[in-house]
Structures are given as C-alpha cells and as structure tokens.
C-alpha cells in the first residue's frame, strides 16, 4: 500500500521531519512561550497535527471516494441531462 517508488522523497522528507523535530525541542526548552490552551504546550504539536491531520484526511478521502466518486462518463447523466 505504501508508495515505494518515492523512496528518495520519503527519505529526504523524513530527514527534514527529524530536523524540525529537534529544532522544535530546542525551541520548547529554550524559549518561554505563552500558550493559549494547555494542549498547545505539547512539544512538537504542529508536527503531530501534520501527521494526524494528513492521515485523517487520507482516511476520509478514501472512504468518501467510495461513496461519491463516479466514472467520468457519468458527468452527462448528472449534470447535463
């Protein structure tokens, strides 16, 4: 299921991801930041939102595709008849 043809891109984006994780940890321990909610103080929250959000959107899209996607030839049936 995973996209094996993008091995190089996966490797590069993984390195970037780890780098950002380390920078975030540095920022978390070195900078005093005012947080509006308690959960905003979780270290690397943005990265987590990125992972969870992207997986959530992929899952919803996959389910929705089964419900609402039709072949291109159906366009006429729905929209111009």
């Amino acid at each position: 299921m995973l996209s094996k043809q993008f091995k190089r891109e996966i490797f590069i984006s993984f390195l970037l991801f780890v780098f950002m994780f380390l920078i975030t940890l540095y920022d978390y321990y070195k900078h005093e930041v005012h947080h509006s909610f308690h959960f905003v103080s979780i270290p690397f929250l943005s990265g987590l939102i990125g992972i969870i959000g992207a997986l959530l959107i992929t899952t919803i899209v996959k389910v929705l595709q089964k419900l609402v996607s039709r072949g291109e030839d159906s366009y006429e049936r729905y929209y111009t008849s």
Partner: protein
Amino acid sequence: MNDIIHPSIIGILIGLIVFIFYKKFLNYFALFISLIIFFICLNLQDGVYNYMTILNYELYIKVDNLSLFFCYVFSLIGLIGLLYSLHHENRFIPGPALLYMSSAIGVTLAYDLITFYAFWEMLAFSAILLIISSRTTVSYFSTVRYAVIHAVSGLCMLLGILYLSIDYDFKTVSTLSDLRGTIPYYLILLAVLINAAMPPLHFWLPDSYPNASIYGSVFLSAFTTKSAVYALVRMFPGEPIISVAGAFMALYGVIYATLENNPRRLLSYHIVSQVGFMVCGAGLGSPEALNGASAHAFAHIIYKGLLFMSAGAVIYSTGLEKLHLLGGFAWKNPYVALYFFIGALSISGLPLTSGFVSKNITIHSAADLHKPLEYLLMEIASVGTFFSIVMKMGFNIFFGEPKSTYEVKPIPWNMHAAMFIASSLCILIGVLPSYYYQLLPFPESFVPYTFTNVVNSLSLFSATALIYFLVANIIAPKPKINLDTEWFFIAFCKGLVYLFNKILVPAEYKYVGEFYRIMIDKFIARIQQLLVSINYYYLEKIITKVPRNIYDTSVKIAKYYDGNMIKYLQFLFIVLAILLIFLILI
C-alpha cells in the same frame, strides 16, 4: 450636485460599451480603464459621499479603511486578470470582467442598502457572462445552475433589505448585530452565506468556475466570494454560528479538493476552504480576527488568481485538464512551475509568502479567544491545503513522468507578465508584512515572524510532506467525477419529475380529466358554437388579409434585422445615447 464620480459607474459604462461593441483592440482599452479605476481607488479619501440622486432618493458611498482595503485588491486583480487575457479575442471576457470588478468595488463602497443590492445583483449577472465565456454545453448548464442559486441569494437579500427598511427603518450598510434573532438578519445572512459558498450551498462554485474559460476563471475566483466576506465582516462581525461553520468549511473544502482530478475544480474547492478561514475570522469578531479575515481575503485573491492563471497556462499550453494525464511540465516550462509553486506555497501559508502573514492572524486570534475547535479545524485544514495543492496537484502536474504524450504550446508574454506580477505580490506581502498590516482596517499588533511560529509552520509541512509520499498511491488522481451536495438537489428534482410522470399524470388522465369532461362538456360545447359563429362571420375575413400584410411587412423588415442580438444591443445603446444627449440638451 453630487460629491463624487463613483469609480464603479465608470467601469460599468465602459464595460457595457466594450461588451456590446467588442473588437479585439478593446482588450487594451479595458486594461487601460482598469488601471484608471485602480488609481481612482488609491486616491479615495475617507468619508461619506453622495454619488447619484434618483427620484429624490440620494445614493451614497462610504470610504473607510475596510472598504478601501477590499477596493485596492479588487481593482488590482481586475488589472492583472485583464493583462492575463490581453491576447485573447472573446466578447465575454474584457467587458464582463470590467463589469464584475466594478460591481465588486460597488459592493464594498456601498453605504445605502439600495446601492448595495444593485451591485450585489450586478455581481451575479456579470459572473454569468464570464461563466458562459467558454461557450460549451457544460458551461451553459453550469450557468443555468449558477443563475438559479444566485437568484435565490438575490431574492433573500432583497426581502431582507425591504424588511429592514420598512419595519426597522434601517437603510445603511453597517453592523446588524443588534438585530440578531430577527427575520431580516437571517435572510441577509443566508444571502451572504450562499455567495460565500458555505456548504451545503457551495456546489455552484466548483460546478461553474472550472467550466468557464481559463481567463474567466481568474476573475471568478476573486470577486463573488470575497464580496461576501466583506459583507460578513461589515454586517455580521462576531456571529457565533459562522465561526464554527467557517472552520468546518475550511476542512470540507480541502477534503473534496484532495479527491479531485480536475485542477481547476481542485482550486475551486480550495476557494471554499480558504473562504472558510475568512468566515471563521468574521465569526470570531475580535478586531484581530476581522483583520485576519480581511488580510486573508486580500492575500487569497492574489494567490488564488495566480494559481488559476498558472493552471490556465498549463491547460492553454497542453490542452489537457486532468491530473492523471499530466506530469513533468516543470521541465517543459519551468517559469509556470515557479509561478504555480509560489501561489501554492502562499495558499499553504509557508514563511516568506503572503499566506503565512495573513492566515496565521485568524488562527492566532482563535487561540487568543480560547476557541480550541476552530483552532484545530483550521490547523488541519492548513495541513490539507499543503497536502492537496503543493503535493498532489503540484507533484502530479509538474514533476514525475508524463502520464500521456502531449505537445507544449508557448505561452504569450502577457500571461507571463500577469503571473509574474501576482507572484511578486505574494512574495512582497510575505517578506514585508509590516507595510501590509498598515493597510488593514483595524490596528494590528500580530508579529508573524517569531522563531516559534516559523518552526511550527515548517514542522507542520514537513510532517505533511512525509505522510504524502507514504500514501501517494492511495490518493493518486483517478479519472472520476465526485458528486457533492448538488446530488441532493438533483435527486430532489428528479424525484419531482418522477412524481409527475408516474403518479400525477396518470391520475390526471384517469380521474381529473373524466371529472372535467362531465362537468364542463356542455359549457365548452356552447362556447365552441359561439366561437365557430364568430369565426365564420368575422375572423375568416381578417385571417385571409392579416397574414398577407404581416408577411409583406416582414420581408421588408428582415432586410434590416437579421437576428443578431449584438446588433440589436448596439442599436439600442445608440438610441439610448441619443436620447440621453437630447434630454441633457433640453
């Protein structure tokens, strides 16, 4: 004596002339007029001005920071769009585009509700001309659906305004917060939300914008929804329903965008999503959130115009409009790829682009106002934006192997120039936010470039990129169409037709018809006898003479009228101009 010449009146008059007497050289004239309107907007001073008096009813415009902010961007994108379409010969582009731009400026400057309503309707009318600009069967059907839904919006607006004027003696465009809970409040809100493409009443947008010509789409992406955002900020600040609804709207748009295979339909769903951020900002209602909504509307108009222009350039160049057929375009025209990615990174909100300095104001104010739901939904919508535009659309059009063989046509200089200007604006706003914030309607203290903000933004997008490459096969573009909420309306109408055909028609034949026959046969028979006698004695003579005379006259008239609608319009326009001159001279 009137105080000011309304810039929209100039645009509308010239737009009509360009539309009716269209020749290709008028493209340059329309561009010149849009430049003049842009400079007029730049020189407007704060205040309330009377611009026209009709039947003792004085019409006003109001110039303040909010209206000026929207005026600048409307006139600017009109100028850029007309530059983009300069080489293209099509009656339905420069004239209607001027009308459309002028109507949007008219909405933002309107002070009395009559002016507001007139320009609101003019927006829908000019948009219809732009949608039909591609002159295809699908655009015709989309135009009809667009007209129907905007007729509903216009009717709600008219009823709301009449109700306000008569029952509440409320005649100016200003905040309606005190009237919350009344019927006109919700009628006007509904009208505005239809124009803002709020789900489930958003289907007209992804239905019509991709079916217009590539030039029409650029204008369509800018005016209708953003005029609605202006109306929300002006009339409904702090409406709690729309803050949550806007945040859901932001997520809804990106989910459908991720499903799409048609690049312009994908971008249309992103309008729904990005307008969601603005609607949420208007709903949050604090000065910072209203600034966020306005700032994001401004930035969005520029980068969405840029994205539609670069998608249009790909379609113009290749003749293809499906993601599953494209690929590797960046090696064939790297400039278009560069323009596209500047727009795509801006809409995603990456640092050094306009989206970063505008979108984060709303997200930050949601956090400041302790609205965790809105905050999280907007953050996830940002993930989806990067996921679908930069990764899915960008990767499938510009990188990888081409999935079909296609020829590449060179792109005219004016298209390059328009995309270059829009790209430069995206970068300039992102790099120099302090100048941008000075234009905002309310004082702004948000500082976008803190270490934490930049790191958070890059963390979000690096994580999204990693997940995209892991699941790219799962969400790869497929040659499919996706039904949206319009399905319910289609199903409802088909159900009605079924009901008529299967139940009502047979019932009418079997029962109602029989009933009528017994009841009125005798009466009809009497009438028939009477008509026959009249016919025999009087009509017979007329019938033989009148058609002959009509035929003879028609043969004479046909020499002058050949059924060309544009000729009629030109004739009508000339007669009206002569009449006007005559009236002025008297």
